[in-house]
């Protein structure tokens, strides 16, 4: 999936926002895997929950993550 280039209000993302969103998308891809050991699977979910806060606070995404168990 292409990482968006604007925030929810249509403003261009700055460099740090682009990086955050890219990491967020990477985490989503990782937690969707079913071959991770528990130490990775659960900690990545924690990390994804944290990054959801930052990207949501900054208006970069607004979505639910229950399908990822987060």
């Amino acid at each position: 999936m292409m990482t968006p280039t604007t925030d929810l209000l249509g403003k261009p993302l700055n460099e740090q926002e682009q990086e955050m969103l890219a990491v967020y998308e990477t985490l989503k891809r990782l937690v969707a895997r079913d071959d991770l050991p528990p130490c990775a699977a659960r900690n990545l979910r924690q990390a994804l929950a944290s990054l959801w806060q930052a990207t949501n606070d900054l208006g970069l995404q607004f979505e639910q993550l229950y399908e990822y168990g987060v």
Partner: protein
Amino acid sequence: MPYPDFWNPKHEALPREELQALQLLKLRRLCEWAYATTPFHRRKFDEAGFRPEHIQTFDDLRRIPFMTREEWMASLQEKPLFGDTLATDPTNAIRYHLTSGTSGRTPIRVLDGTKDWDWISEMWCYGLWGFGIRPEDSVYFAFGYGSFIGFWGAHYACEKIGALVVPGGAQTTESRIKQIVELGVTTVASTPTYALHLWQKAREMGIDLATQSKVNKVILSGEPAGSIPAVKRQLEEAWGAQCGDTAGMTEIGTIMIFECSHHSGGTHIIEDHFIEEVLDPNSAEPVGYGELGERVVTSFGRGFIPLIRYRTRDMVMKVPASTCTCGRTWDLYSGGIRGRWDDMKLIRGTNVYPSAVEAIIREYPAIDEFQIYIWRKDEIQDEIDIKLEIKPGFEHTWPELQTRLAKDLAEAHEGLRFNVVRMDYGTLPRFELKARRMTDARPVARY
């Protein structure tokens, strides 16, 4: 680099037209989510002829049906444990909390997923950072850490901010005071009533918290008193510290308003995560700035149990963001939560509905008549008495009844202590028409 004043500078100073555009976008997505996943909301939307795609402008918010506590309770009772309000499988939850209900023993039960639970502390971060909590602070939580949501989110928010957290937990007031002084904490989180109790107990121990502790901030929550000027002044003098009010509710899991370090006399609404409407409680029409009305909240946080246009029955008065000098563009509630439009009472941070108390009392056939009497002890501590009469012939049941009823009432109210008092037979008033079995003898707050 010095710390910025705002937790989220991008949104806390967002021009209001952009803020509303953000709220509109989130509202539409929230409605889509609720309609697709939550039988409770799907049913209500269908009954009202509402579809998420009807949300085109901000005024379309008013097309969405209200959600009430009574409907939520009915759903819980019809389909225990959670009714049909869940948007996802309960196995996705990592947290369970509850708040006392409006009828009998059934509480409002809530679940949170991992990101919901983290969001709950995130909202506290907005408030605590805005009040002035920083990584250098050490924060003492005078809180029991039970299934009542209370300060749980604030605890994790302080960890997230990087402050040192001291969980007060199950200790005596004396032990807590000793820790506050010995550890040199800079901040205490407490209900207003308990903050006053801590101060009073410290005086009895020969400790002046204003001069012998390092506390310079007191975070208040759980009772309206945190925004009552007289109480606030008393607390600030007692502790020699700034006091900041916050307010939240179990139904959303966290706070939705906070007092910032500019202390304008109001509490900012976290408007990038909530839509807060203020409506006439009877007509449900919007009221303007400076008018008293009922809080109606839509939360963009907990997706597990979507909360859309939830009628809180809280009494508030919205004022524009410009009332405060901090630079936030978020409106405020002048005087925080000022009271209730229904008969719910807040006793030491716990919601008490007379109907719920009566339902439990009526389980005891030995009780003839009763009265609920709420009063303030030593000008600081709220107490709730159940004055009751035993039916003739049942007098022998009294000692055990007293213990059992106090236990049953406490269990239905997050451990709140009820004083069960026996009255002589025939002394309590009887009612032929609408009964008035509750008296609130606490002083009326002045704003």
